[in-house]
């Protein structure tokens, strides 16, 4: 195989991986902390994209890009916390919380997606690319927008990781995730941190949505495919550490890029799902997971 093609495949895999990492982080954060699977995550992605479009587009409010994204982050955080309050918190004490939260978050996703359609209509929109032009590194040609995307994703994930590791609220969140009862006994407000985790997940999903919106046309259901990708990533890598879905996302990105080249655009997702099922059968806790199958 030609080296140029190989480099091209790896590059597109990296871009995909970066996007998937951003999508999967919020999902795995909610999973590890609250013990539930949030099916509204895909709707969060779409919502983030639409909010950013609303704030930044010349047809709407026309704010500059950076404040627009910051504003949509804040709104996404608030919406995430609100949805936790409405869709998950009422059932925390119920025994069948796993099934109930699947149902309520699915219903929440339906409401969000149809709400998007009501507010912004079905006509496709697009967020302008982050930057024009390209840079050349020998055989490798990188578009500036791709570079910025990868850089930003790295920065965002680093921020979230550092926040969780070193800041006081971040450490409280990890404490709540590890042992709810002990955290409550130490005086931590468990529902508050649950809401914050949901908010952060929504925020990262919204950012992922912004990036998706710069690449593709936006539609209310634009989040369902990324949701499935995030699901694959989370299951593939497991959720033992904050970083495991990130590694998994990079691997999945490469697998996808290579299978697009070798089996075609249509069959690539099937390859991914197949890989995921194989991983689930052999190592249900994920490639980087520790054995723990209580959920």
């Amino acid at each position: 195989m030609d080296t140029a093609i190989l480099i091209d495949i790896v590059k597109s895999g990296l871009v995909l991986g970066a996007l998937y990492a951003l999508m999967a982080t919020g999902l795995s954060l909610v999973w590890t902390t609250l013990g539930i699977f949030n099916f509204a995550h895909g709707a969060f992605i779409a919502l983030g994209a639409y909010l950013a479009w609303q704030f930044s587009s010349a047809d709407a409010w026309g704010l500059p890009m950076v404040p627009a994204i910051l504003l949509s982050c804040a709104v996404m955080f608030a919406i995430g916390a609100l949805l936790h309050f409405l869709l998950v918190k009422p059932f925390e004490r119920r025994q069948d919380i796993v099934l109930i939260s699947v149902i309520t978050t699915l219903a929440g996703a339906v409401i969000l997606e149809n709400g998007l359609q009501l507010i912004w209509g079905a006509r496709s929109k697009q967020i302008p690319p982050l930057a024009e032009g390209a840079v050349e590194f020998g055989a490798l040609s990188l578009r500036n927008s791709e570079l910025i995307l990868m850089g930003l994703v790295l920065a965002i994930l680093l921020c979230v990781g550092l926040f969780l590791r070193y800041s006081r609220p971040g450490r409280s969140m990890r404490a709540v995730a590890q042992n709810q009862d002990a955290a409550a006994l130490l005086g931590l407000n468990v529902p508050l941190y649950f809401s914050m985790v949901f908010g952060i997940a929504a925020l990262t999903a919204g950012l992922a949505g912004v990036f998706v919106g710069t690449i593709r046309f936006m539609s209310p259901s634009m989040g369902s495919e990324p949701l499935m990708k995030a699901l694959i990533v989370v299951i593939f890598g497991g959720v033992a550490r904050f970083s495991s879905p990130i590694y998994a996302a990079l691997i999945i990105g490469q697998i996808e890029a290579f299978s697009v080249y070798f089996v075609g655009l249509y069959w690539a997702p099937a390859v991914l799902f197949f890989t995921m099922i194989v991983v689930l059968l052999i190592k249900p806790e994920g490639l980087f997971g520790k054995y723990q199958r209580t959920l």
Partner: protein
Amino acid sequence: MRYDPPLHKTQGLLPLILAAVALLVYPLVFEATYFRHVMILAFIFAIVATNWDLSLGYAGLFNFGHVALFAVGIYTYAILAKTLGVSPWLAILAGGGTAAIVALLIALPVLRLDGIYVILVTIALSQLIYLVVISWSDVTGGTSGMVTLPTLKIGDYRLSKDGRIGYYYIGLGLLALNIAFLYLLTRSRLGRAIMALRDNKYYAIARGVSEARTRALTLTASAVFTGIAGAFYGAYLRVASPDAFGMGFLTLVLSMLLVGGTGTIWGPLIGAFAISFLSEWLAGFGPWQNIIVALAIILVVVFYPGGLWAALQQLREVADGLRSQTLARIGRRRGKSAREALTGARERMLKTRYGQIAVADTGPTTGAGKPALLFLHGNSACKEAFYKQFRSFADRYRVIAFDLPGHGVSDNADPETTYNVDAYTRIAEEVLADCGVTRVHVFGWSLGGYVALELAARGTVEVTSLAICGTPPLAVVPDDMGRAYVPTAHMVLTAKQYFSREEARSYGQHATAPLSEESAFLHRAVRRTDGRARAYMMTKLSITDWPRQMRMLAEGRIPTAILDGSDDPFLNHDYVAGLKYGNLWKGAPQDIQDGKHAPFFNRTDAFDLTYFSFLRFAENDHMAGDAPA
């Protein structure tokens, strides 16, 4: 003697037949095609939803790939009937077959997974099937699907003619077959194994139920009619679209399941009709349609986890409560003189904190100055069960009996707080206090026996002697019940909320006497009893301090007699005889020869003689005990 109540008789048969007849006749009368179209869709969705309930509700297996099985049925029909030219009828059957095979493939990876992983794997697998369908566009038409599928024909008659009446009846027939299949399945050994695994997995496995095999069978069984319904859907709408794999369709069917109520066949059936019509009615509102259906899901899950079916059950409970309360009200006014003539005692209504209690008391007539004797009746009976004792004991004793709440002509009461042995005992204390009685001989029959034991154990009233009949004392509940009673299906009837006519007769016959002119009032009492009194009696067992009763018997401060019928069909006599008693009359249970569960009614003379001599013994014993003081 083995007691076998007629549990196999179904009670919902009448509403079912009525509904079936209505559905059969309706298209002959009304010809509105659109309404008929929605009905056909509702039939199909009802099949999908009820089968999904088999895995989700009955098995507790979060199979989110169920809708994909439906889509597999559609595509099987499309490919076989259109591309390969197979007879559409065969293609419909084949839809069930392929769906079952795919279900088995889905089942394999989830055999040993739990909880959320089952959801994720089944969703992933259904997405995988979806992607295969989309990608394999030469065969499946890709994202645009397949159109103009062949319709169903009988000879040259196209079923879509005459306002789709043919599709209507085939859909209805499929639904009926499907319901019969699920009904028989859930009541078979396999069905019981499925529910056992859901309710107590480790216990079921310990009893030899194979989890993996049962799961595989459940998923496969739930696929057959789903696939057939999918194929029929394809034949009806004549399109196969990949939308059937989508989250939107999944949410729609899920809402039918949840709004209807999981874990029953009828809940999803009702839910399918309700949601089909709701969503068709909302079809003109665009995105609002989906939003409202989703909101309905959330509201049901928050406020009404049991769904419509639970609402129906609650309605039934309210109606049954009203029925039995009305019977009590009528009986209170109409039959009072007849009852007083029967017992020879005065009847009055006593206001207690548990509602009005009917008390029969010979105090005002013949009982003045005599020692008091309290009779406590059993489950689903009434105070007149002791009318013969009223006659034979009234010349020496002041005989008192009352109707337990929810029984006889006493009021129905709040089931949560009232229908348990503890509350019954408090009522007995109130009744005795109202009669001005502080020392009393107590006779308790069956459920009343536990009230008698509790009354003696509490010690707020001085119980001078204690006799129980048909009441094996318990210590560890419910474990002891398994030994104390002959393990027959009887235990199901004693706690069953609603009796069919036949069940009521069977219960009345075995608990008291076969239906005759003499015992007719006891059989009427069974019908009058508030069903909740039976149901809550079992669920509120833990309120009572059973070991205290056992300690009281072992300590033996109160002379005690056990006067069981020797032929009592419910009792384990060896268990009763093997307990430790401190002061048991004649040192052993004194069984009444040929007596059944109610020997005082069936073998009155023998019983009265025995109980008489016990009472005399107890009085002498008591005097002897009192003498030194």
